[in-house]
């Protein structure tokens, strides 16, 4: 997902189309493929999501052993290199038993929507496995997809393309924030000055380059662009990930990816089902949406005078905000504040 030459663009499109056809063979319909340009204007803050990915394998889970999953697809090489990381997403739940009061007897686990980065894999027909960072809990027979993850270098370029503000110091360069344990961590591209160049932690300009820093699964990026430069466009190509996004979060801030290619509204999104809902912003989880560089906070009012529904954090008794649009290409800054930590983004119009 980065903009380079037109040759690269068309080559990517061609590859995406081919892999889409190949991986769609087990599906009743083709996956949604396409191109989405995500603009990141200079001199403002942007919440950026990665709406399209390159799916390299799909199939069903054949075994579960801790964090190692047997898969029906045949892997032929390493898919966990630093420069080209991958993740696995569970896209269905084969055995529905044990879920909810009306479920039939028996038990099964639900990993539907869970995603984790792949740290190791085995290859071969009938012997392919993947080992993940976090132990997912699928059932044998659940469907999965394996897709490429982005790094700072693959997403923005190393060096970044025209328009981007690279500099000797984080104080004058564009900043890319990733969330890490509830805290936002800044990176910048160091293009001059004493010491080595490349993507650096803002707090370690003299440190080693971290070009291969992974944008974790389920996550987008928070970009703070300086006044110089010009609008920077990320061209996202590939296919849309199927199924809901079921993300692990902790107290604090998380930059949630919006992986969907169609707009939906807050009220239709279903996000509220995974949030803590209080009578006011102070007792609720909060999501922030970015529009033209301005972050606006919303919470789902679940009790108290004035009814229930989505509200501005600044106006608990104000008008319902359920009609606010979640735009493709825009990430969601989520603040886990109350209750059980969790965040789920159901697939629009599919669940």
């Amino acid at each position, binding site marked *: 997902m980065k903009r380079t030459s037109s040759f690269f663009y068309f080559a990517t499109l061609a590859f995406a189309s081919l892999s889409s056809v190949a991986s769609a063979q087990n599906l009743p319909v083709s996956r949604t493929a396409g191109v989405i340009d995500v603009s990141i204007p200079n001199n403002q803050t942007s919440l950026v999501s990665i709406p399209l990915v390159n799916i390299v394998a799909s199939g069903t889970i054949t075994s579960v052993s801790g964090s190692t999953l047997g898969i029906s697809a045949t892997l032929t090489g390493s898919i966990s290199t630093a420069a080209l990381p991958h993740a696995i997403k569970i896209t269905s739940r084969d055995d529905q038993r044990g879920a909810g009061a009306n479920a039939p007897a028996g038990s099964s686990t639900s990993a539907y929507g869970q995603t984790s980065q792949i740290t190791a894999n085995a290859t071969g027909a009938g012997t392919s496995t993947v080992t993940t960072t976090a132990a997912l809990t699928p059932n044998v027979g659940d469907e999965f997809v394996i897709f490429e993850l982005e790094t700072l270098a693959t997403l923005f370029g190393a060096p970044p393309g025209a328009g981007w503000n690279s*500099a000797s*110091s984080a*104080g004058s360069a564009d900043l890319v924030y990733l969330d890490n344990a509830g805290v*936002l961590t800044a990176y910048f591209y160091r293009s001059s*000055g*004493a010491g080595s160049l490349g993507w650096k932690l*803002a707090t370690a300009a003299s440190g080693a380059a971290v070009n291969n820093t992974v944008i974790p699964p389920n996550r987008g990026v928070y970009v703070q662009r300086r*006044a110089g430069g010009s609008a920077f466009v990320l061209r996202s190509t590939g296919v849309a990930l199927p199924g809901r996004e079921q993300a692990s979060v902790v107290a604090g801030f998380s930059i949630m990816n919006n992986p969907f290619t169609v707009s939906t509204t807050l009220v239709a999104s279903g996000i509220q089902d995974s949030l803590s809902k209080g009578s006011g912003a102070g007792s609720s989880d909060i999501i922030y949406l970015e529009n033209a560089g301005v*972050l606006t906070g919303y919470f789902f009012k679940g009790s108290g005078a004035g009814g229930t529904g989505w509200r501005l954090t600044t106006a608990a008794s104000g008008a319902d905000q359920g009609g606010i649009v979640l735009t493709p290409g825009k990430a969601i800054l989520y603040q886990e504040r109350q209750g059980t930590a969790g965040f789920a983004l159901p697939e629009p119009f599919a669940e």
Partner: protein
Amino acid sequence: MKKTLLIISFLAASFSSVTAATLIADNGDSGFTLADGATALSSGRVRFGIFVVSDSLVISNASNLSYLDTNFREVASYSGAFNGFALPGFFEQNLTYAGGSTLYGGTQYDLSSASTSNVANDIAGSKIYMWALDNAVVANATQQAIFFDNGNVWTDSDTVGVQDSFFSTAGAVALVGSLGTGADIGANAPSHRLATVAAIPEPSRAVLGLLGLGALFFRRRRA
């Protein structure tokens, strides 16, 4: 009575709010040299904060370290060797400071609680000034530079998700000292130079001098 207690309780809660933040600062674009423009600044002090007097007063009082010190609100500082990037003359610091309602020399960091509005008379939203000295003790310094960052301000404590402040000499404006006029000391660019602190007479010597002048004047009149 109950209402009064509630208000006091609210005020106490508001003013006890302290947000930890980090100032990320370096001079990796150029490095510092002394006034000769060739010798790298090997040790000293960099202070970060704001001046509560105008830039023109800072410039006109550049030789009066006591005046500058009195009117400086230090939020964070570093003293020691300047060897960032493994080169003399450079610093690279991540300095933790308290935001929110914390007072710095009587000036509150952020007066707009629960809002990112930039209000007057606080530090948040103000330009970040860097005061570099060739000695850890202000009064003992013989060379100094005062720059402000033209692209960054002290971050408001209520900025969503991000509290860090950034300082870069790459986008700085010099009030004292000069930018990019020294030798290249490793950044592949000219260094920033400190300026010599002009000597000002001590008060007792100044009084003695005045008395001497008065005596001379008196003697000439009598003659």
